[in-house]
C-alpha cells in the first residue's frame, strides 16, 4: 500500500471476467503518519481506509469488465462491517464480485480476509461513466500495469 498516494491495493491476484470476480492482495505498511494519529501508541488501520480498499478492489473489477472504457466512482456504502482491528504490517486478501451491472451504475459485494478469516465486508454502489479525459484513462492503465493487471485476460475476454 502507498497510503499517501491513496493506493490501497498492491497486486491483482485473480480476475475472472466470466464469474465477474476479482481477488487482490495488499499489505498494510509498518509505518505511516496515519498511525501516529490513529492511534498514538496503538496503531490501527482506519476502518474508512479498509472500506476504500474494498472500493478500489471493486473498482478494478468494474474497469476490467468495461475494458477500460469507463471509470467507476464510489457512490454508496451499505452495511460496511469492520469486524476486527487491523494492525500495521498485516497481509490482506481482498475480493469483490459484481452483484448488478446497471446502466451507469454498478453494485458490488466486497470483503477482506486476514489469514482466511473475514475481517471486513460491504456492499458498494458506484456511478460508472466514460473517462472524463484521455490522460486520466492513460494514468489508470499505467497504474493497472503496476498492479500486475492481467491485460491479456482483457484482450482475450
Amino acid at each position: 500500500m502507498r497510503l499517501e498516494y491513496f493506493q490501497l491495493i498492491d497486486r491483482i491476484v485473480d480476475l475472472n471476467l466470466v464469474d465477474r470476480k476479482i481477488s487482490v492482495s495488499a499489505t498494510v505498511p509498518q509505518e505511516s503518519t496515519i498511525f501516529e494519529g490513529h492511534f498514538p501508541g496503538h496503531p490501527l488501520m482506519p476502518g474508512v481506509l479498509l472500506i476504500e480498499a474494498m472500493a478500489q478492489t471493486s473498482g478494478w473489477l468494474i474497469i476490467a469488465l468495461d475494458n477500460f472504457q469507463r471509470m467507476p466512482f464510489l457512490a454508496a456504502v451499505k452495511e460496511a462491517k469492520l469486524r476486527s482491528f487491523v494492525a500495521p504490517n498485516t497481509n490482506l486478501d481482498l475480493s469483490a464480485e459484481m452483484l448488478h451491472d446497471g446502466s451507469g451504475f454498478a453494485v458490488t459485494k466486497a470483503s477482506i480476509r486476514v489469514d482466511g478469516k473475514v475481517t471486513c465486508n460491504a456492499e458498494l454502489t458506484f456511478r460508472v461513466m466514460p473517462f472524463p479525459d484521455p490522460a486520466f484513462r492513460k494514468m489508470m492503465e499505467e497504474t493497472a500495469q503496476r498492479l500486475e493487471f492481467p491485460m491479456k485476460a482483457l484482450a482475450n475476454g
Partner: protein
Amino acid sequence: MTCDQGWPAGARPTAKFCNPFRELEMSSTFETVANIIAETCDIPRETIKPESHAIEDLGIDSLDFLDIAFAIDKAFGIKLPLEQWTQEVNDGKATTEQYFVLQNLCGRIDSLVAAKGA
C-alpha cells in the same frame, strides 16, 4: 372475436376496454415499484401514486434513484436504460415526465419485460 378484429387502423379500442385485466397487470407493476420506493427511500407508501413524479413530487435524487433502479432491475429481471433516458432529457428530446412519472415508468418497465420474453 378479439378486440382488434373489424376495427379500422387508428380506431382500435383502448387496451383497458379490450382487456379488463390490463389495469390489474399495470397496477401490479405499480404496486411493486411503489413498494420498492417506499422501502428504499423511506417514503410513506400512501403518498406514492401513479401520477407521482419520482423527482419532483417524491423528492428522490439521482443517487436514491440508483438504489431504486437496482431493486427494479432485480425484481423484473431487466436493465432500466437510465443513461439513455438521461441523455434524451439533457438533449431536449424527452421530458423527465416521460420517464419519471410513475405510471410512465411502469409502462417502460412493462415494455422491457415484454421485450425480454419476445
